[in-house]
C-alpha cells in the first residue's frame, strides 16, 4: 500500500511562538514528507509492499524500518499539539501519572531529563506496557516503542531539526516550550 502524508491537525502558525511556522514547514512539509516518499519507494517489490505501518515497525530493518518508524513517530508527534491545549491531564491518566511519578511536575522533570540526555538524534516517550504500567523511555534515531510492544502515549522529537531554527543548541528551552502546546486531551485519548 502507498502511504500519504497526513495534514497537520492545526494551522502552520498555530503553535507560535513556542514552535514556529518555519520549523513546522520544514519539519512536516520536508522531513515528514521525505520519510513518507522514501518509505513508498523502498517497499516496492518487498514483503512490506502491502504491509501496514505497525507491521513495518515491528518487522522491517534498515531503510524501510527507519522511514516507516519516522512516518509513525512524526504523525504521532504532530497530533498531540494544539493552539488551545488542555494543559494538564485529568481523570484516570492523571491518577496513573501521580501513581507512577508522584506528581505531574515530577513526571515532567523525569521526561525533560530523558529528552535532554538522549545523545544525538532520537525521541523521548511516555509509554504504557501490556499491564498498563507507565514508564519513560528514550529511543535513538527512528527508534519506536511499538517495536518493543509498548503503547506510546506522548513523545518529544529531539532530532535537532525539531528545534534548531527556533532554539539552536538550547534543547531544554525547546522541551520547556513543547509542554505549552501539549494537548493532554489527545494523550488521554491514547491512554
Amino acid at each position: 500500500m502507498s502511504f500519504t502524508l497526513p495534514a497537520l491537525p492545526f494551522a502552520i502558525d498555530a503553535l507560535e511562538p513556542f514552535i514556529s511556522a518555519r520549523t513546522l514547514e520544514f519539519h512536516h512539509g520536508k522531513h515528514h514528507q521525505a520519510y513518507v516518499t522514501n518509505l513508498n519507494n523502498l517497499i516496492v517489490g518487498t514483503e512490506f509492499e502491502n504491509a501496514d505501518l505497525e507491521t513495518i515497525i515491528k518487522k522491517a530493518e534498515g531503510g524501510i524500518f527507519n522511514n516507516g518508524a519516522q512516518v509513525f513517530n512524526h504523525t504521532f508527534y504532530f497530533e498531540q499539539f494544539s493552539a488551545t491545549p488542555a494543559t494538564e491531564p485529568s481523570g484516570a491518566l492523571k491518577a496513573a501519572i501521580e501513581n507512577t511519578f508522584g506528581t505531574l511536575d515530577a513526571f515532567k522533570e523525569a521526561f525533560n531529563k530523558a529528552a535532554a540526555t538522549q545523545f544525538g538524534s532520537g525521541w523521548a516517550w511516555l509509554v504504557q506496557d501490556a499491564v498498563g504500567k507507565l514508564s519513560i523511555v528514550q529511543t535513538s534515531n527512528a527508534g519506536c516503542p511499538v517495536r518493543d510492544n509498548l503503547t506510546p502515549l506522548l513523545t518529544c522529537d529531539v532530532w535537532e531539526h525539531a528545534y534548531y531554527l527556533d532554539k539552536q543548541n538550547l534543547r531544554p528551552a525547546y522541551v520547556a516550550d513543547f509542554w505549552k502546546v501539549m494537548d493532554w486531551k489527545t494523550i488521554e485519548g491514547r491512554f
Partner: protein
Amino acid sequence: MAFVLKQLPYAFNALEPYIDAQTMEIHHDKHHAAYTNNLNAALQGTASEGQPIEEILANISAQPVVIRNNGGGFYNHNLFWEIMAPGGAKQPEGDLKKVIDASFGSYQNFKEAFTKAALTRFGSGWAWLVKQGDSLVISSTPNQDNPLMDLAEVKGVPVLGVDVWEHAYYLKYQNRRPDYVEAFYNVVNWDEVTRRFKG
C-alpha cells in the same frame, strides 16, 4: 590537565558563503564548548585524567558512555575546524593526490564515495576519510564516534571528516544535507589533510 577549547583558526565568517558565520559561532562556541566542558567534568578524578585524547579514544570501550560521547565530540570538532580553511586548493595535490587516485581511482570517485557516506548516515554522525597504512578508505560513524575508537567498525587515523549532525548545517541548509556536503568541498583545507596523512 583539562582539555582546552581552541580558538577557531579563522574568523566565524571566513567560510562564507559555504558555511555561514552564525552556524560557525554556535557550532564552536556552544556545541564544541559543551563537549569540551562535559569531557573535562567526566574525566575529573578518574585514572584517565591527563591522558592524551588519542589514548582515551583508543581505549574508549572501557570508558563510560559520557566520555565516549564528549571525548569524540571534543576530538572530532578540533579536526573539523582544522581541515577547513578559506581559499584553499580546490583539490588534493602532490602525494595526497597520488594516494587518493591509488585508493579510489580518481578524485571524482573519492568525492562520490565520500558524499554517499555523508548522505546515507542516518541521524547524527560523521563521514570520514581514514588512513590505513599507506592507503585511504571512507567510513561513517554514528553520533560522535570516530575511527580512532577501538569500537569503530573501520579503524584508522581520520584525515578528513564532515560533520553531518543537523546542527552543522540546519540554519543555512535546513533539510538539504546534500547541498551542505557539496558546499563543504569548497572549504576543505587539503594542506592540512596532507599534513595529517603524512603525520
